[in-house]
């Protein structure tokens, strides 16, 4: 079940990200990135990171709401992208991604000693005492995000 779910999500990610890269239509690219984010949230659930899956889905809803608000403007002005993927660009990105994969695989195949985690000391129960700065950072992130989006939505009414 785990393996089949992984292969389904990874196939969706590969297909939609390749479509996103080589599509000339920007509106389709925006829809493709939504599907990519959704499949990535599935992978996060497989990796026991449900919180980040939730954050991804939140990002999907925000991007989708902005997109739905500006679809008429997008249809008018953003349809064609001047995407010029030359051979040198493709080759350089391929080499860099291969290097990333090789270095990460070296790290992954190394036999690291198992960390001794004391879950009584290091757990989410002490989040409010030990990890309070991180919690404050998350709260500030969301407040900044919602404030900026509301400000932009007010300001960009003249464009559409």
């Amino acid at each position, binding site marked *: 079940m785990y393996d089949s779910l992984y292969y389904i999500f990874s196939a969706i990610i590969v297909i939609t990200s390749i479509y996103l890269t080589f599509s000339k239509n920007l509106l389709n*690219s925006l829809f493709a990135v939504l599907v990519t984010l959704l499949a990535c949230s599935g992978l996060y659930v497989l990796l026991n990171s449900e919180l980040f899956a939730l954050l991804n889905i939140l990002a999907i809803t925000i991007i989708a709401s902005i997109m739905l608000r500006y679809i008429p403007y997008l249809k008018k002005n953003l349809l064609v992208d001047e995407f010029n993927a030359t051979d040198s660009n493709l080759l350089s990105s391929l080499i860099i991604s291969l290097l990333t994969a090789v270095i990460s695989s070296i790290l992954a195949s190394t036999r690291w000693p198992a960390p001794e985690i004391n879950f009584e000391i290091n757990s989410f129960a002490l989040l409010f005492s030990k990890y309070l700065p991180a919690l404050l950072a998350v709260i500030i992130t969301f407040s900044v995000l919602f404030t900026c989006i509301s400000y932009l939505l007010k300001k960009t009414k003249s464009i559409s």
Partner: protein
Amino acid sequence: MPVGINHFVFIGSLLFGLGLCIVISSRNIVKILLGIILMFLSSVLNFAAFSNIKWFNPESHIILLVVIFFFVLLLITGYILAYNFVKKYKMLSLEPDNND
């Protein structure tokens, strides 16, 4: 073949390469932001894979939250810059017009 950490690393590197390809090839501001989102997804996927597939470590989640915090700030800055660019130049392409 059972799914291991290398599978997630493969997907992460593929996403990183495609995002980099978009960033260096595209001339549209929105598409460049999409490429940056792909690169960010690859980094977070690698981080989550390394922190969860062998042992669960709660501290890695805190580091991931901080990474997401900075990414959201970066994305908001890019969105505002893109908005100001569109407002000023009335176009989304970063390529200068050859006719001028």
